[in-house]
């Protein structure tokens, strides 16, 4: 029984079957990649997982609880954090403030009216945030505006913000899309480090095979809304069906 169980999920948009009978099980503390050509339904599947879309049929269970019909912030509070294709950070805020907000959310829940405390005096939150920034090698930039950082650093910060909440499951949507090679490698190293240091399940949706094969322990290949195969990276590499879906080769 995996930490994330997707069963018989179907989703239609008008005449388009975006997801057809998707079954997926992500084992706890593993790195699971979902790959597939454009239009395979990767993003739709992700949107179902984080509560943005409700499937027509089927169930999505996280840690034994259904996520369907819950709001994104409720799903986050259950222990699922999401990293976006373009880094979503609080651009007008400083790096340190960016890091403090998820820690506040973890401690205080979806809403708390703390209008008369001084945020500088929240010692334990500031400490945790600084500690997290240090582990990301970003402590020197703590008072910078986060919007002025490079894309690679924004990505680093975003991943750090997700980790600061110690989620059970980290969802990554094409974390290296549009990144320079050096930034991509940095991101891979960061994710590897996270995997080694923490008890965390990572589900990653990715185009870049270099990223997928350096990280994933299991891979699911989606094509036209249906899982084609699920296997270890070694077996996926040579799998005839995958080559066919990706390259249009007739094996």
């Amino acid at each position, binding site marked *: 029984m995996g930490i994330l169980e997707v069963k018989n999920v179907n989703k239609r948009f008008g005449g388009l079957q975006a997801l057809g009978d998707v079954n997926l099980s992500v084992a706890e503390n593993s790195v699971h990649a979902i790959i597939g050509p454009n239009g395979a339904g990767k993003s739709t599947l992700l949107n179902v997982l*984080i509560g943005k879309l409700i499937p027509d049929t089927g169930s999505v269970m996280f840690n034994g609880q259904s996520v369907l019909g819950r*709001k*994104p*912030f*409720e799903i*986050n*509070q259950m222990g699922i*954090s*999401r990293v*976006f294709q373009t880094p*979503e*950070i*609080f*651009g*007008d*805020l400083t790096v340190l*403030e960016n890091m*403090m*907000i*998820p820690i*506040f*959310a*973890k401690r205080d*829940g*979806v*809403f*708390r*009216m*703390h*209008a*008369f*405390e*001084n*945020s*500088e005096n*929240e010692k334990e*939150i500031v400490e945790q945030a600084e500690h997290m920034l240090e582990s990301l090698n970003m402590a020197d930039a703590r008072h910078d505006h986060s919007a002025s950082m490079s894309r690679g650093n924004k990505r680093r910060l975003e991943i750090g*913000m997700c980790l600061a*909440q110690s989620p059970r499951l980290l969802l990554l949507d094409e974390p290296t899309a549009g990144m320079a090679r050096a930034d991509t490698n940095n991101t891979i190293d960061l994710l590897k480090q996270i995997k080694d240091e923490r008890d965390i399940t990572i589900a990653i949706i990715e185009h870049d095979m270099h990223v997928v094969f350096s990280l994933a322990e299991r891979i699911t290949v989606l094509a036209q809304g249906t899982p084609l195969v699920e296997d270890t990276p070694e077996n996926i590499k040579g799998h005839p069906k995958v080559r066919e879906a990706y390259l249009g080769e007739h094996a």
Partner: protein
Amino acid sequence: MLGLNKKDLSLLLIVAFLALCAPFILNPFPSDSSLAQFNAGYPDLMQRFVIFGIFAIGFNILFGLTGYLSFGHAAFLGVGSYSAVWMFKLLSMNVVPAIVLSVIVAGLFSVVIGFVSLRRSGIYFSILTLAFAQMSFNLAYSVLTPITNGETGLQLTLDDPRILGASRTESGGIPVTNFFGLDMRDTYEMVVGPWAFQFNNGYYLCAILMLISFYLAIRIFRSPFGMMLRAIKSNNTRMTYTGLNARPYTLAAFVISGMYAGLAGGLLASMDPLAGAERMQWTASGEVVLMTILGGAGTLIGPVLGAGFIKYFENIFSKINDGVLHTWFGFMPDGLEDLVVTLVHPFVGKGWHLTLGLVFMLVVIFLPGGLVEGGQRIGRLFRRKKSGDEAKKSTQSTPAE
């Protein structure tokens, strides 16, 4: 001190100094000089400065922090005024219950409007608040006449019950508003040579409440709650996916700013106990938007500056008529004098809106951060000069080594 850091505390102290010494600061010209008309140190105008300052400070908590642009805040101001006048009619002429009720009623009213309007963001939110405010305005003007007295506006009369006070004074007039016996209208005039400085009880009550409001606003700005509000403005998506529900945060900000507006409305009525529907009109809502943007949205002091700036224009610039212009340009030859007066005429007197509009455009285009940004730029210019001098000195000293 007071839970503020050094910088904020000094800002608060500066504002406190300015507010408490306003009768001197706003009255720099001797009363017999021709510049005396630029004096703004009379009670009525000073009260407006601080009351609209409160209004703008509250508006800035919503607009400056969350970025939700409400176009209906005058509705809360109007509701506050009506509540205060009703308190004067029914209970007593003491301003305390009137102000308390106006804040509470405006708060409740903003819970309702905010709950509905905050389902949408951006332009739709603005339109919804505008629609609500116009609805309130039209209701106050027509159907709700029994409560609001329609176009005439709500006024005190001699046969109001005033159960804790007197319906009429011993001399048979309508009693005046007071703060535990201290008449709001009373003014002490200090004459120093050609200057006449006026110290008005009402003004000082407003100024103290403004300082308290300002202090609370600083606390909110620096609190984790304020940080969450800025996070909403910055990136609502990340906010939601960080496990925070933006709706109660924005609603709380909306209600707080509605209560500030109610306080301002209650004070307006306390200084001059009447309330008319025009206080809720969309132009009044637009005015507070202008004040906040002109001064600098999202800054602490900006809205207060903007409010002062606009109220000064409204009351002082609008008084410059052709007669005044002719005395100014009297030194010129006749033909030239008439020409200059004709050219300047559209910008002053009744045309003060034109000047204000031009100033507003210039500020928005060249100083997107408002007057506060202007001040910061000037400050930076001076600092650069200073550090430039020091740099020169240090380069001069190097060859000697």
